[in-house]
């Protein structure tokens, strides 16, 4: 009875609810299906209509397709980003870092928060990109596995290093060369997302956890452990826990890790697999411990002193959301200047102070300390060298691997 605290929702919970609200029911939109059917199958009539609507193959133009660059005449750039992923002033309507950029360069930023979910957004831009058309966006922000897919499909443009001096100089070493974009030819990270283990001290009630194995095996935690539905984070941490390298693992290693999790699921150790909504479970104490995203943990910890995190000795998973310029974007140079701007320490510090994810820019500490001393010393926002050394990325997958791995993982989660 003593665990029940009907307090008001924390900022992180509200954000998570809002995110899951958008991801949940909006995720199964019929928009993409409709567009395809309206274009392809107006000829109704039995089998003829059925075979009329296949999905065309993705174009394969390595290096991306540029449109004529209108950056000089049109001083504007269209920036599509995730919701609540940008600094705002006290009124909540203006974005100080974007305004500072416009003031300095004269380039107006059309900022839209229209990305709520990687898969949903992919469905939205796929028809235009596949048909070789402009998406109307100059910068998009995608999580690395989807960024990798866009680059693989030849739908992202190669960046011009001459326009990105700050980005080249200040990019943090751990983000320098992902295997899906060696040397960052097509993308730069917007924010890093660390997957770590979070726990609720009160709910643990003295049980000691140090590794993922403790979560999977300790009978005292039966039915009170949460894992993420994000395959790469959950499987990556499991691989690390089994001394396998998520950057180099084989299909056999993957199956072994899956079998390990399956055993825990069969025992009833795992309460459920969650998206962002785990924040409510861990703060109420329904989860004693779970795999969690560092950005959320920073928020949760601020609202509830019982919540804390741990980094297993074996390491933690790091993924990132990345800035990309899609094919046929009209303002490529302007977009590159905006990307470069966010790699200046001052702008990066202002952003980091507001959104609490892992900052991918080096040399931010002094500027961040001026705004928020605690944030500057928080290893979840600015990882120190020791912490950076423990970070691992999930290796990029071929599309066949992706399908097989996702399917196996989905079976593990019950669907």
């Amino acid at each position, binding site marked *: 009875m003593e665990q029940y605290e009907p307090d008001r929702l924390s900022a992180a919970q509200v954000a998570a609810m809002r995110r899951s*609200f958008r991801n949940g029911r909006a995720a199964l939109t*019929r928009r993409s299906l409709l567009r395809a059917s309206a274009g392809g199958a107006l000829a109704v009539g039995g089998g003829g209509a059925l075979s009329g609507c296949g999905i065309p193959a993705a174009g394969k133009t390595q290096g991306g397709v540029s449109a004529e660059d209108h950056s000089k005449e049109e001083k504007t750039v269209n920036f599509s980003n995730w919701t609540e992923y940008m600094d705002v002033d006290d009124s909540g309507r203006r974005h100080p870092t974007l305004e500072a950029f416009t003031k300095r360069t004269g380039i107006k930023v059309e900022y839209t928060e229209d990305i709520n979910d990687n898969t949903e957004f992919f469905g939205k831009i796929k028809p235009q990109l596949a048909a070789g058309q402009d998406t109307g966006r100059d910068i998009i922000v995608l999580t690395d596995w989807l960024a990798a897919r866009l680059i693989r499909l030849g739908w992202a443009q190669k960046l011009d290093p001459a326009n990105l001096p700050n980005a080249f100089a200040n990019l943090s070493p751990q983000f320098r060369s992902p295997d899906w974009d060696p040397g960052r030819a097509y993308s730069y990270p917007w924010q890093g997302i660390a997957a770590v283990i979070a726990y609720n001290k009160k709910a643990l009630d003295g049980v000691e956890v140090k590794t993922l194995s403790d979560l999977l095996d300790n009978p005292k935690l039966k039915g009170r452990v949460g894992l993420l539905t994000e395959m790469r984070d959950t499987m990556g941490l499991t691989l690390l826990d089994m001394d396998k390298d998520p950057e180099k693992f084989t299909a056999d290693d993957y199956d072994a890790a899956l079998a390990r999790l399956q055993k825990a699921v069969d025992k009833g150790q795992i309460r459920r697999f969650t998206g962002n909504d785990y924040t409510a479970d861990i703060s109420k104490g329904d989860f004693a411990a779970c795999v969690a995203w560092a950005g959320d943990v920073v928020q949760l910890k601020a609202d509830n002193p019982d919540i804390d995190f741990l980094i297993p000795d074996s390491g933690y998973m790091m993924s990132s959301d990345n800035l990309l310029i899609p094919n046929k974007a009209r303002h490529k140079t302007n977009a590159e200047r905006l990307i470069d701007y966010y790699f200046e320490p001052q702008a990066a510090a202002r952003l980091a102070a507001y959104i609490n994810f892992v900052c991918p820019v080096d040399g931010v500490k002094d500027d961040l300390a001026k705004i928020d001393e605690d944030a500057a010393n928080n290893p979840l926002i600015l990882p120190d060298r020791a912490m950076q050394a423990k970070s691992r990325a999930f290796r990029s997958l071929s599309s066949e691997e992706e399908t097989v791995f996702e399917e196996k993982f989905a079976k593990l989660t019950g669907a």
Partner: protein
Amino acid sequence: MATVTEAPPLAPAPGTKPPRRRGRWTPYLLLLPGLLWLLVFFALPVIYQASTSVQTGSLEEGYEVTWHFATYWDALSEYWPQFVRSVLYAASATVLCLLLGYPLAYLIAFRAGRWRNLIMILVIAPFFTSFLIRTLAWKTILADGGPVVGALDALHVLDVTAWLGWTAGDRVLATPLAVVCGLTYNFLPFMILPLYTSLERIDPRLHEAANDLYARPSTTFRKVTFPLSMPGVVSGTLLTFIPATGDYINADLLGSTDTRMVGNVIQSQFLRILDYPTAAALSFILMAAILFMVTFYIRRSGTEDLV
């Protein structure tokens, strides 16, 4: 129904001309928006889905129609447990909705008096917030160590439900019981509203007549009220059962790995695994299964002309 009599068609008065030709197309024009709506938002998506379900390929190579019907069989043999579970959960939720909704609808229709409007508003009030928020609220209600779970535990109800396999240990969340509770709660108004409409139409004089003929209240209910409310029962159960079978939010938020329903499978096939043909085949199997069950149900309840 005794009170409703069809008005006889108006016979043309002698000496007037038959209606002019101009009006002949009016009914069709009036139907046009509805037909267009059906075409664009139902027929075309269904055709598109049917096509997708017999395609093979991948995102890179593109998808082509190869009439690969094996997808259906593969999908069914792989995911039949989720199908069975969906039907089971939806049926349990529908029965619970009927048991909870009928007395309430009866109360509103016959006994509520001046409170009628207020109670109706209370029934509809949850719809003012989003489906998702309502479901999330159940996570707070059923939280481990919360008052509800504490009370059930103290009364040893949880021992019984755990023995039946409805709950696990001393928790309710992340168990089948939580999912069925969520489904029941979320679809209850869809049961109450049609029940209320059909009960409200019953002429109270029929009750008086039954009373005059020495029928006990229970007999009156069995012989008069319930049969007359059958249209409400049928449409209420359909409105509850059909969406509940395809629902995935409740299983996602209140359930665990062993409570996944077919909606969850379709969602993950469409959005995570990107296996569009399997997802489309699953959707079609679900649609066919529901159609079959509903037809059977309407036949059995003998209300084809009432729904």
